[in-house]
């Protein structure tokens, strides 16, 4: 319990799914108050707040304070696409490391039930006269004319590109990844979907963007997650039970794309994830084979495959064999997305990067109930926000 370590003292997520009667503030407040209670402190001790939300009106941090406790502390409203939650954690982590506060709060919340495709809304209509506009000098909207801008389509290509490079991919292979995550979520009472889908059901569901059918896409839903972080120095002063349940953040890393050929043509989610993973393993002194569980950003089934490789859970180019070996099922050597992942637990964008950490932390505390990975000591949580930003956190249970 070194003084400059940062720990998770309390953490919580709401049920992911439809919350028609709760607004953003209700969901953020529920996650926050549960995380604060889990930490055994009050809003009075919190010295810094980072809050993420993409689809509300902005200023979610202050709006949350007005419902749960206004103490005058600095608020950082953060936005980093699907990495927003991890970014909130990262901001609080940096503030604590910098000595700015002893306790900090990170919150992410989204209302996304019924939001459709994440396609960037409706394509604008063509204007009455063709006139070049924007950075490509285009006379009309590009989506559908110069490739696709939908998330299912972009991530489908990312999975297909892996198949082109290394071989072995197929529609069925990607569908079986989704089958795994939907099977896992049957044990997660907070997941949006808790029903097991058969492989046939997955492959014969509505095709969204080949090879991703609907259940192979992240589930749009409502939800929030929150975490209370504490410095190692402050943790030493707390009660034995708080120290026992605290989870160590052994690495907290955020990366963006270094420039590479093609990275501005088709988003490259590989290099920045690999860079984040490498730095996280180095910082934590942990090897991929040490991981007892991994929550990674399966925004689409095609994405999960490439991240086995990017997080170095398998040899380079070996993701297909790795999956086929059964390694990533909950009884395998490296259980991946035992929560059900984004495909089944759901993906309320800004909450995801904290909810993934909640899942790992809950196993490390031995409090995951029916889906507990026995004896879990170290785990990794990963998110990608297209654009791109990658967050990787390595967590370890208290000794």
């Amino acid at each position: 319990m070194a003084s400059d370590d940062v720990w998770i003292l309390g953490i919580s997520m709401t049920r992911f799914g439809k919350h028609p009667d709760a607004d953003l503030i209700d969901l953020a407040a529920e996650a926050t108050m549960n995380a604060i209670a889990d930490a055994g402190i009050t809003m009075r001790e919190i010295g810094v707040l980072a809050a993420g939300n993409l689809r509300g009106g902005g200023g979610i941090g202050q709006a949350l304070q007005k419902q749960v406790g206004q103490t005058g502390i600095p608020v950082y409203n953060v936005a980093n696409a699907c990495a927003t939650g991890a970014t909130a954690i990262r901001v609080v982590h940096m503030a604590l490391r910098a000595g700015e506060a002893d306790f900090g709060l990170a919150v992410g919340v989204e209302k996304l039930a019924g939001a459709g495709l994440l396609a960037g809304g409706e394509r604008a209509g063509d204007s009455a006269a063709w006139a070049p506009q924007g950075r490509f000098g285009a006379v009309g909207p590009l989506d559908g004319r110069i490739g696709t801008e939908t998330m299912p389509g972009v991530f489908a290509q990312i999975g297909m590109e892996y198949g082109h490079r290394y071989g072995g991919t197929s529609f069925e292979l990607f569908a079986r990844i989704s089958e795994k995550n939907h099977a896992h979520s049957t044990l997660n009472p907070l997941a949006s979907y808790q029903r097991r889908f058969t492989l046939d059901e997955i492959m014969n569901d509505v095709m969204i963007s080949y090879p991703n059918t609907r259940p192979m896409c992240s589930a749009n839903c409502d939800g929030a997650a929150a975490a209370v972080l504490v410095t190692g120095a402050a943790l030493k002063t707390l009660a034995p039970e708080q120290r026992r349940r605290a989870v160590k953040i052994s690495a907290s890393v955020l990366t963006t794309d270094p420039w590479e050929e093609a990275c501005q043509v088709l988003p490259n989610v590989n290099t920045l994830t690999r860079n984040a993973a490498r730095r996280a393993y180095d910082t934590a002194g942990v090897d991929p084979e040490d991981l007892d569980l991994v929550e990674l950003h399966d925004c689409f089934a095609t994405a999960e495959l490439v991240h086995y490789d990017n997080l170095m859970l398998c040899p380079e180019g070996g993701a297909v064999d790795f999956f086929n070996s059964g390694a990533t099922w909950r009884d395998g050597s490296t259980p991946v997305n035992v929560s059900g992942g984004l495909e089944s637990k759901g993906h309320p964008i800004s909450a995801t990067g904290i909810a993934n950490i909640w899942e790992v932390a809950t196993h490390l505390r031995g409090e995951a109930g029916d889906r507990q990975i026995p004896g879990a000591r170290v785990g990794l949580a990963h998110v990608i926000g297209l654009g791109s930003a990658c967050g990787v956190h390595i967590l370890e249970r208290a000794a």
Partner: protein
Amino acid sequence: MPQTVPFVDYLVLGERPHLVARECTACGARFFDRRNACASCFGTSFTQVDVSTEGEVRAFTIVAHAAPGVPVPFVSATVDCAGTSVRANLINVAPTPEAVRLGMKVRLALTPVGVDQAGTEAISFGFEPRP
């Protein structure tokens, strides 16, 4: 003969239609959009270069659901044109997993987008299978 305009400014029409890229004179990185500086080496000097009209499909998807107003299904792809990656639709090929293959050899082809109120036709590009 109605007047025509390219759908994007990096498409050159005429007898030999092709794409052009902005190439960094310092490091050779290529870009299709208007540039402030090079994202690779931060240089600010660019020259316009022709992009090969022949390439190979490095990744594709068959989009079945898109934003309202976008006709589906269509094939979106990343095409490797002699080392320069290009985003485009695949055209003149059935939008089915049987007809489209990774590694497929393709070439640039033009496709009409529509005519505006002044009678000007916008022409875009895609890639079609090479015989």
